[in-house]
């Protein structure tokens, strides 16, 4: 018994070792390949964090820049300057308002459009979907002047509502195309069963399709919001007063004085919105990937 137990325990430990060795072989190679890329990609964020809390006299000291602090750091001065001497809180608020509105508009327009093109329009829908997506590829640098003319005609210049009007022009096409592919992965039989049971089309959509499509919808939400936060050309062109600016142009135009960028302040300004976005992506990473790749297999 003891020998058997001993043998079992030895076997158990051996099994553990084998399992560990197997796991190491399987995953170790992945980590070996992915690790350096991860370090490379994370390094700018590391520099951003260090610079954000560094005293401004230390930016030009090559002995410590960009890797670590000097004797007068870390400091809250840059963050304090950003919040007390600039319109940064207003830029954050403007960006949040525009982001939420644009995400809402995008969902309202792209969800039914994506469904219609996926289910109801047949082969025409396929072509139409591609055509809608192609409008997304037209760069803002070509469109900002005609859009500026339009914004002036409707008297929305220097207002954040000009961006709420314009941003869906690129979030809706991409989201429609994305959702179109995603809806195609949902088995038609589910809808047919619901319709046979007496559900209307709208009820089928709201009770069956949309709940299943949460990954796709989340993808649209995250992607649209990211586009809004990162967009620069329209936000810069349509809005001049500092208090109405969005985050991207505000940081670039107000925190660089002539030939002097305020590095510490700029890094704090970039760090603050990065954190929630990073958390958002991280929390919904699986669903985000599912949303993007859902349409890839049809």
């Amino acid at each position: 018994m003891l020998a058997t137990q001993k043998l079992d325990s030895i076997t158990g430990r051996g099994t553990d070792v084998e399992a560990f060795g197997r796991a190491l072989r399987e995953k170790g190679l992945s980590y070996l390949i992915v690790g350096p890329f991860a370090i490379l990609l994370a390094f700018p964020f590391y520099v951003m964090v260090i610079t954000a809390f560094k005293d401004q006299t230390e930016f030009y000291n090559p002995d410590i820049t960009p890797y670590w602090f000097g004797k007068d750091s870390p400091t809250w001065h840059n963050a304090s300057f950003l919040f007390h001497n600039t319109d940064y809180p207003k830029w954050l608020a403007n960006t949040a308002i525009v982001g939420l509105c644009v995400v809402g508009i995008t969902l309202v327009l792209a969800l039914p459009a994506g469904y219609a093109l996926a289910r109801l329009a047949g082969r025409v829908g396929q072509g139409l979907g591609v055509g809608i997506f192609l409008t997304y590829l037209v760069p803002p640098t070509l469109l900002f002047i005609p859009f500026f003319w339009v914004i002036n005609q409707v008297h929305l210049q220097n207002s954040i509502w000009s961006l709420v009007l314009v941003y869906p022009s690129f979030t809706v096409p991409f989201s429609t195309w994305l959702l179109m592919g995603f809806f195609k992965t949902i088995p038609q039989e589910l809808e047919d069963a619901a319709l046979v049971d007496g559900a209307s089309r709208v009820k089928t959509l709201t009770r069956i399709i949309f709940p299943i499509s949460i990954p796709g919808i989340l993808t649209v939400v995250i992607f649209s919001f990211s586009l809004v936060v990162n967009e620069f050309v329209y936000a810069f062109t349509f809005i001049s007063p500092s208090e109405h600016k969005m985050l991207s142009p505000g940081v670039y135009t107000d925190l660089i004085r002539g030939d002097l960028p305020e590095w510490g302040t700029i890094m704090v300004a970039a760090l603050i919105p990065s954190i929630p976005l990073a958390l958002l992506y991280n929390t919904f990473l699986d669903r985000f990937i599912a949303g993007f790749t859902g349409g890839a297999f049809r």
Partner: protein
Amino acid sequence: MSSSDDPARREGRYDRRELIRKAGAGAVSVGVAGSGLGQAFYGPLRFKGRWLKGDLSLITWVHFVPAFDTWFDKTWAVQWGQKNDVDVKIDHILNTLLTARSTAEVAAKSGHDIFFNLSPQAQFEDDVISHNEIVQEVQRKVGKIGRIAHKATYNPKTKKYFAFSDNYVPDPVIWRHDIWNAIGLSPNNWDNVRKAAPKLKAAGHPIGIGQSANDVDSNMALMSFLMCFGSFIQDQKHRVTIKSKRTVEALKFMADIYQRGETDEIFGWDPSGNNNFIYSGKGSMIFNAISATRTPEDRGLPFANDLWIWPIPKGPHGRMAYEHVMGCWWIWKFAKNKAAAKKFLADLEINYRDAFMASKFYNFPSFPGAMSFSRIRKAVASDKHRPLGKYGILTTIAQKYTTNPGHPGYANAAFGEMFNKSIIPKMFAEVSQKKMTPQEAVNAADRELKQIYAKWRKLKKI
């Protein structure tokens, strides 16, 4: 211009503006501003009797001296607005974005009443009013417009001032006296610079004359360098004259300085590149306005007192440089309040002493009578940064060694397009990087310039 100025479209933000609007015309006191006496002058003379109520919007750059923007926005504009019953709204953006913004406003025929840029934008001549009236008004008060500003903003063909210049910025060389001293040389002339270049680089302190297409400093520095060698973009009749032996010689000279005394980063700089180069303690010499010395002073960098300011080094043809930047305002034809815009600019220049002091000697008045060189010398002499009196050289540079873009001719739309396309920095970079021979690079630049000039000549702008 902006929807926010119209009560029907405002979002209820501007109670104060409605009050001012309803306050009535009010009498405007006639003041006499002695030229150069620095007295405040807000009342109209030429504009007496005209109603000046309403709004005025303008856009300008974010001045590198924060105190200037604070003075301009919160003191000057507010006081002027109260005296003239005009609500002045000022927007600031980064200088590198001004051109894109102005292009958008012209295309939309809507935007700010007054626009600003750091160089004359002759290509907008047909979209702006004639500024002759403003120039005449200021000349009546403080004396003639300076030669530099006149030749930078006046089109002799159309007899129109297409912009109003309130200031220009002399362009010195900023160099580390301690580092140059260690090798026993100074940047008095270009031969010295070439001799010093390898020694400085070996000591870990290369020279930093940019050759970047993305950088106004590179543009100005290299065009000035050409002038020191007797090479000019255009002549007095605005014919392209870049193709010459002197240009080839200048290209070879600068290529040699790069290869033996500079580093590759100079090809990728933006306007802050050379500044950061000197602030890091690595650079031994750059071309820049005094923002490159003021920032180390403000930040307490250890070598701040070792940064000296000299005129551009002397070349075979002498010493001559363009101004570093020139403040140019213009009033769009679609501006809603042209009368107030004209008066605002006139009053600004007439009272330029305050602006000069607020800018920490950065902005030199385009009308010398607004603040005479003798008064400027007195003012800069009071600066306490070491070496004492180092800013005094700025007046010498402004008086003797600074000329207008386009020298010996006038600035014009073709010159402006050449500048915006960075043709000269590209020409130098091709040679320094051995992608072209000097003659090939000159030929290519000459072809490109001739096409540009032909286009604008056809449009009857030059």
